[in-house]
């Protein structure tokens, strides 16, 4: 077994872990950042391709929760975590969400005012801005529909360096930003290394053990003065449970359930060179978000579904079809449990009646939006139901059946190690320090006490920056 020694061990290199590693290394700490997945360039594979799914997604992108209605979910597994595969859409949260967390969970320094300097810092350093020029055809349809219905809509800013005219540019993922900063400040990055267990003794964590993959692989041991866990909302609680910690660990998983539908128009709406549509309807946020999804040929074929008559003819004019989504601020709750002998967790999520109701309402809004934007046909998201061709038929979307007849997915998971001042209800204090420990922190999506209702990466990074400032000021 190889043993490494460091002052701070950071486990997981997504937006949470990469931010911690960069800031602590820049503050002069001796940091080792350990990542289970490979260390790849941002352009090692085209976005949303099979190759990218093989390289950068956990389990090739096929994960599902257990429960009456399954929710398929995606996780990144590479240096940079999900920031390497995400759409890079950036949001500040609604101030009321933060105020609610402060009030309901007793979290200190949790307000827009307190977080503002951190948001501003991220926005500057990760080049958060709108695109330089025109919108994609799909985005224009969202604008057209929203204007016809007098609904608020906006172009979402992105972590993106646009280049010249057109949509070209470079996503400002962690492998492009915080990881190089961490390295430049002296942090060591150990990729292809999965931590399997923390070494706990009383109120202290003394390090961790894991396994490095590949030909030079084998068992590894880290000895550290401090450990920061940032393996994401599914893997962080799994690792704590494997290490013997149970209290408020993996009991409160929250997520943003999402349903996609394909819509056919008379004219082309789909220009893949633009990438993901950046317009969202703001009218129903934070409970309901409407927007556009990646719409390559395989994704369109997938969402056309089995029940469309003559998929071949439709696919011949695939550029007339776009994929759109409704995402809701999930009210359901899930759990994460370790399974004996297996290194992957059992994830349960109860998609509650309220989630189904919100999804149904959201789908009706989305249908109205798309018909107002000129759509001719919406493919029903309910297995076995025919396409919808008139706004008058949108009512059928209000009663979504629970169970396997609807394809619910998520890319936003949180709250599995919620922060809060009350140790009986939370896993960490207001700044991510694990209750009952002197030198163990959690710094990732797990900390958010509930679903924020907006794209979460910016919020996660702002909270982590705030927490690192506290770690440094406490010495």
């Amino acid at each position: 077994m190889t043993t490494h020694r460091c002052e701070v061990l950071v486990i997981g290199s997504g937006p949470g872990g990469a931010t911690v590693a960069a800031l602590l290394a820049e503050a002069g700490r001796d940091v080792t950042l350990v990542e289970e997945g490979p260390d790849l360039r941002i352009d090692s594979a085209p976005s949303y391709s099979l190759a990218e799914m093989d390289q950068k997604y956990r389990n090739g992108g096929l994960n599902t929760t257990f429960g009456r209605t399954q929710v398929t979910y995606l996780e990144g597994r590479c240096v940079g975590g999900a920031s390497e595969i995400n759409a890079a859409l950036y949001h500040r949260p609604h101030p009321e969400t933060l105020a609610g967390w402060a009030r309901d969970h007793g979290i200190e320094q949790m307000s827009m005012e307190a977080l503002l300097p951190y948001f501003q810092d991220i926005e500057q350093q990760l080049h958060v801005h709108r695109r330089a020029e025109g919108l994609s055809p799909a985005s224009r349809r969202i604008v057209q529909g929203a204007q016809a219905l007098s609904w608020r809509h906006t172009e979402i800013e992105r972590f993106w360096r646009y280049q010249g005219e057109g949509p070209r540019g470079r996503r400002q993922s962690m492998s492009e930003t915080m990881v190089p900063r961490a390295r430049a400040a002296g942090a060591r990055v150990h990729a292809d290394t999965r931590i399997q267990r923390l070494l706990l003794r009383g109120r202290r964590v003394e390090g961790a053990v894991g396994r490095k993959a590949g030909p030079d692989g084998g068992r590894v041991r880290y000895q550290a003065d401090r450990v920061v866990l940032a393996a994401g909302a599914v893997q962080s609680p799994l690792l704590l449970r494997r290490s013997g910690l149970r209290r408020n660990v993996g009991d409160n998983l929250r997520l943003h359930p999402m349903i996609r539908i394909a819509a056919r128009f008379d004219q082309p709406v789909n220009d893949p060179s633009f990438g993901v549509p950046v317009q969202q309807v703001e009218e129903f946020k934070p409970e309901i978000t409407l927007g556009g999804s990646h719409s390559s040929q395989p994704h369109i074929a997938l969402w056309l579904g089995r029940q469309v008559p003559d998929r071949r003819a439709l696919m011949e004019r695939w550029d007339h079809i776009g994929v759109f989504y409704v995402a809701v601020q999930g009210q359901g709750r899930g759990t994460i449990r370790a399974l004996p002998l297996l290194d992957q967790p059992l994830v349960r999520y109860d998609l509650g009646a309220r989630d189904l109701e919100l999804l149904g309402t959201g789908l009706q809004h989305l249908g109205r939006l798309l018909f107002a934007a000129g759509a001719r046909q919406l493919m029903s998201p309910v297995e076995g139901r025919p396409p919808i061709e008139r706004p008058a038929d949108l009512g059928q979307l209000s009663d979504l059946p629970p169970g396997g007849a609807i394809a619910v997915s998520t890319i936003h998971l949180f709250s599995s190690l919620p922060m809060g001042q009350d140790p009986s209800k939370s896993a960490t204090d207001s700044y991510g320090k694990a209750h009952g420990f002197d030198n163990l922190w959690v710094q990732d999506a797990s900390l958010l006490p509930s679903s924020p209702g907006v794209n979460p990466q910016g919020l996660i990074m702002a909270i982590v920056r705030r927490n690192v400032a506290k770690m440094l000021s406490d010495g």
Partner: protein
Amino acid sequence: MHPVPPALSAAARAAVAARLRPTLAQLVRDVVADELDGEVHVPAATEVLLRRIAGMAPHLGVGMVGLTLLFDASCRPMGGPYHRLPADARARVLDRWRALPGPLASWAVFYEKMGVFAWWAVCEEAQHGDHGEVRP
């Protein structure tokens, strides 16, 4: 890569893949029957499916393999395995599985969706190179 379970030896995993391959290939043919000309891209899409199952978390991947074998076994009384049945019998057996409860219906939906996705992904790569979001 071969289908799960990963605890099996390489030879055993290759044997499981060989056992699943004809069934998965026929499922791909059937779910893209609308748009398929001959055998185009069926073998490549079948390998994508095998790779996806191999990459799943073991508790899901083992289930997929088990259900696929069960599905094939359920075709025996009709003269199966699945890939040897005539088209109308294959359609009937898939319909029957869709109507079954819980994981059995999910199994059918998985292949319907992933079969279509894999086949179109392979087509797209073959036609245009792999079309992702534009990068420099």
